[in-house]
């Protein structure tokens, strides 16, 4: 009995330790973690997790919904910030979301992990405390609530469930969504079908018959690949060509949106989907947002726009901000590459990050989580880096025969369902098998914690670089005739300016306002001091008490006023994105 008790205690302690490790390995003592990351959170579990966090940190969190999906699911929002340091919109906002593509599920775990980590560390880690106090985090852990929920409940596969559940006649035959995949063998997954065919273009790999390789010219084929499990339900000679959807939310946003014949999945018009409209309305209602992260899988990338050549050119000052954060990001998440959408990947129109930057002037990254190249079975340093072609072909790089070894030996074979014969009602004897649903784009669970923590750290690093503007008096100089010259400086030690150059150039967001006022004080003139040493001064012709400006990346702006009168003057800095500041000066 005693022995059993000790045994149980040991198990419990081990459990705590393991959990803590899975939870990011930050704590060495203390209570059980509020959220654990030893599993994937399905639809209801995500809501439960948000409620759990809110119950544990009611002061620092707010939970609510921003709209409903096509299938009537709520789109949840978690706001993290300290109300004692000001209303959410008074502080720079960071918007983070995940799983705009319903099959890219671990993006949601990054959102939850980030939320949990910020809250859990609030009292113990000074840097986190400071960031939570001085910024607002808006987190939408699941954008594509319908398809992500179905990823857990419906028969599917790692590539199934990308789009919104908006009905669309993909094959343009007048019937809608009539040729979906079918789980023929009833195993709860839509895997691959192949049929024996001497004229097929594939044959089994000599070392591992589960793997198929392309036949070389002159070689005899063995297999014809038929694509994903299913029937030609509508008898039109095409297989699975009219699945539910197809509206790709990340092609439905409103910056340089292009119609379906230019951009697959675009939807009927910008923000024609319910969720994209809800998210767009939400982000537009929070002008304090200065940066956004949208998490996806996979490939290990920190992506930025332009998404296409149609995009307006990114001003160099903005590119510098992106480059700084992106290149640091490559170090925070080793292996991930900082890339430019249209140039390094392929052209896309109507993506969310381009909408944020193009329409709202907000910087943003797409985080493509997980590289399959991490699924290795080799000694460190052995093997070669995958080529670009291989990365594309194998979702990041591990050749399939090595991935099978990783599957067999490191994952005990749970990743791949071996080919099994099946009597297909239309094609006769086929074989069904392949990489299972929670693989390929999704890491095995044991690889999750580091992925979660490093990507959350990338967000926190970026949040650190949200504009924090300080306002200081440089000079209060007495001139003749009861006049004073007042010079103040606003400065920002961080990478993200108080306004992006895009927002400035295209007049998307109003500029920051520096204002001076005082009882009985007359404002004689106001000017922007471009260079105090060379006395380069740009006067403001009208309303000199109010000067419109912005505070650049890692930089400062100086302004001056000539005022008449004595006593106290108040200088205020008012910004849409950065926190407002006030300064009182004696003349």
């Amino acid at each position, binding site marked *: 009995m005693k022995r059993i008790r000790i045994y149980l205690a040991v198990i419990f302690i081990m459990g705590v330790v393991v959990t803590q490790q899975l939870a990011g390995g930050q704590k060495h003592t203390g209570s059980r973690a509020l959220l654990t990351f030893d599993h994937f959170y399905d639809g209801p579990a995500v809501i439960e997790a948000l409620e759990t966090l809110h119950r544990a940190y009611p002061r620092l969190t707010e939970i609510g919904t921003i709209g409903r999906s096509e299938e009537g699911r709520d789109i949840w929002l978690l706001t993290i910030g300290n109300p004692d340091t000001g209303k959410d919109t008074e502080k720079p906002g960071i918007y983070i979301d995940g799983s705009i593509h319903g099959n890219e599920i671990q993006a949601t775990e990054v959102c939850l992990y980030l939320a949990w980590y910020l809250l859990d560390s609030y009292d113990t880690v000074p840097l986190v405390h400071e960031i939570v106090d001085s910024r607002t985090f808006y987190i939408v852990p699941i954008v594509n609530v319908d398809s992500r929920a179905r990823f857990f409940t419906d028969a599917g596969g790692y590539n199934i469930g990308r789009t919104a559940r908006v009905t669309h006649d993909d094959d343009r035959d007048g019937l809608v969504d009539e040729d979906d995949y079918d789980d023929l063998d009833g195993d709860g997954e839509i895997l691959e079908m192949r049929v024996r065919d001497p004229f097929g*273009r594939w044959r089994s790999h000599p070392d591992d018959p589960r793997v198929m390789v392309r036949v070389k010219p002159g070689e005899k084929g063995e297999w014809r690949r038929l694509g994903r499990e299913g029937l030609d339900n509508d008898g*039109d000679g095409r297989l699975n060509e009219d699945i539910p959807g197809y509206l790709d939310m990340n092609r439905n946003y409103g910056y340089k*949106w292009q*119609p379906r014949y*230019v951009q697959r999945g675009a939807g009927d*018009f910008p923000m024609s989907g319910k969720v994209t409209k809800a998210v767009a309305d939400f982000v537009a209602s929070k002008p304090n947002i200065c940066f956004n992260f949208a998490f996806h899988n996979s490939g290990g990338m920190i992506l930025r726009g332009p998404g296409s050549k149609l995009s307006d050119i990114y001003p160099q000052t903005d590119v510098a901000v992106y480059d700084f954060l992106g290149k640091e990001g490559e170090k925070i998440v080793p292996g991930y590459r900082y890339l430019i959408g249209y140039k390094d990947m392929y052209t896309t129109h109507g993506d969310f990050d381009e909408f944020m930057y193009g*329409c709202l002037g907000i910087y943003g990254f797409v985080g493509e989580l997980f590289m399959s190249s991490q699924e290795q079975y080799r000694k460190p340093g052995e093997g070669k880096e995958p080529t670009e072609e291989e990365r594309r072909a194998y979702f990041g790089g591990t050749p399939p025969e090595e991935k099978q070894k990783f599957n067999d030996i490191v994952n005990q074979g749970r990743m791949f369902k071996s080919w099994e014969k099946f009597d297909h009602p239309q094609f006769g004897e086929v074989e069904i098998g392949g990489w299972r649903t929670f693989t390929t784009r999704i890491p095995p669970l044991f690889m999750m914690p580091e992925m979660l923590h490093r990507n959350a750290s990338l967000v926190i690093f970026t949040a650190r670089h949200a504009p924090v503007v300080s306002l200081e008096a440089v000079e209060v100089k007495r001139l003749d005739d009861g006049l004073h010259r007042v010079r103040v400086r606003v400065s920002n030690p961080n990478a993200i300016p108080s306004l992006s150059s895009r927002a400035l150039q295209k007049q998307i967001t109003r500029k920051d306002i520096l204002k001076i006022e005082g009882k009985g004080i007359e404002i004689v003139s106001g000017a922007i001091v471009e260079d105090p040493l060379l006395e380069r001064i740009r006067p403001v012709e*009208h309303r000199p008490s109010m000067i419109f400006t912005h505070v650049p990346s890692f930089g400062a702006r100086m302004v001056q006023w000539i005022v008449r009168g004595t006593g106290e003057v108040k200088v205020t800095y008012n910004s849409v994105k950065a926190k407002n500041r006030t300064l009182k000066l004696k003349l």
Partner: protein
Amino acid sequence: MKASRLHRTVTALLFCACLVSAAYAGADRDRAPARYHSPGRDRSSARYHSPAEVEDALKRMAKGHRGTAAISSIAETPGGRPVHLLEIGPGDAAVPAILVVANMGGDCPIATEAALRLSELLLGEWADDAKERRWYIVPLGNPDGHRRFFTSPLDECFVNAHPVNDDNDDATDEDGPEDLNGDSYITRMRQRHPEGAWLPVADNPVLMKRADAGKGEIGLYRLFTEGIDNDGDGRLNEDGAGGVNPGRNFPHGFEHYTETGGPWAASEAESRAILRFAFDHPEIAMVLVFGRTNNLKKVPESSRKAEAAAEKYKVPERMAKRFGLDPETEYPLKELVAIARDVTGYRELTEDMVLIFLGVGAAVNPDRRDLPYWNEASKRYNVFLEEVGLDGKRLEPPASPPGSIEEWAYFQYGTPAFSIDFWTLPVKEKKKESAEGPTPDEIEKMSNEEFIELGSDRIDAIIKASGAPGPFTAEQVIKALESGMITTAKIAGFIRKAEKKEEAGGADETDAALYDFDTNAFVVWEGYDHPTLGEVEIGGKVPYAQLAPPAAAVESLIVRQLPFVRKLAAMLPRIAVERVEVERVAAGVWRVDAWVGNKGFFPYPTYQGERCKRPTPVAVTIEGKGIEVMEGRKRLVTGLLEGSGGSHKVSWLVRGDEGVTVKISAQSFGAGSDERAVSLKGGGA
């Protein structure tokens, strides 16, 4: 007794007043500027309908025609006004439909009148036109904008009430114009100033023109909109009430960062509602737009740089390498699809997927295969105008603005889409002295290459003769032509404009035409002591004078032109199973051939519709008791059916007993349905 009579009289008067005011101004309680809305001036009761009156009129029509007409509100504007849609058609029957949208830009009151009149006609004299098709009519696409036509002071501002911080400062909508001289119009202010770039027109000093430094003219005046600098930022009237113009908010050719286009396409309740409605109603086979543009009078030029319209494409280098192609060669799209299917092994790869990977943009020109139909429709329209006596010389309607509904309807919705303006200012016919060199008409007919072949000397002469500003050289023009930046049509237009300017003593063509039309359309400049500018003069063009004809002229203009709408409706595609042949192939085995044809004028879908995958083409099915389809599909979709007799052959090999009846059906959303039954019998092997 006396008191009670007085009471009765007062009550009656009050009642009358209520009736009058309700009928006159509707619920908007508009204060109508006299010029357009006073019955006195026109000596008739003709007047324009305010948004509230439009609503009343529609409600009356719907109430009077239960079963054939119904009214619904498809959106609420930022100003809290409904956008109404009137449906006229044969009850619940599934018939093709025509969508009519009027005054989307809020700047064309006559368009709303035309749509209301069309509705009345369809519910009256033209009831037959609503028996086999349905009409969806939005008489007022931009009620917020149109509302300003009934507001004093009158101001040409057509945006909705969506608050926009135009000057990007600390306040929104804080600096609109003011009617300083109290004439109930927002006109212009001119101030003598060294920075002035404007001059009075020599022989008509009420008109202003921009000084041409190239001709030694020195500007005298600065021009402003009438008003004060409410926010003290040194700029006048730069942030008025609202807003966005929903007529520039549609997703084809939408431009970001414009003054009134909106932050993104479909950002506005009005445009979204129409988009949503259109996509929810696949039976819409044609879109008619009543507004300021007219793409029937003149078919849009087809010289804009097109990409998705091309049939051959170069493959980007990286992809070319992967596919073993030459990046310098242009490949037919079909071939590229075949190659991509082969390389990827993905059989369901479609043309549009390949186009996406090629990074090909949207079409910008009407598909050349749609143009014969469009040109013919245009020809018929111009003949029609001649017949009804409306072919007099008048100002060219403006080209479609970016994000217009009519361009969206053709390019993204894929149906025939026509826009009709009902009026522009008449232009006095003037004898043209024959100048040297080609006329604008001749230039327009030339290809870019032919024009370049004229040689730099002649091109220089043409440029000089056209009075082009600045140091424009033949070389620059040739370069621009070669790069596709400009076209001969553009050059012709430029020369025409210059010629017109010359004729009018340098006055703007529209100003000159307006002055000829109505000298009262200009307020004579009069001095005014402005609070910040000091001495100015207020005067200039009366708002809406060039946009809205006198109310008394409206009825005649629209009843004469609306019959063409009927003609267009009669040109809709109409499918029929035209012929079915049965041939015995072997015992109990038959070949069935069917021809599905299009008896209408327009193709179904249009070629652009084929590209943008709308609408669904005709679906053909075969049914019969106990038959088995051995070859062919039981249900299949035809491709595009050419207009005016185009046909598509469908063949099946079926097994069935002799004498069995086989039914061939053709179905479509927007071109009707038809079926034909035959027996399995006949000759052959």
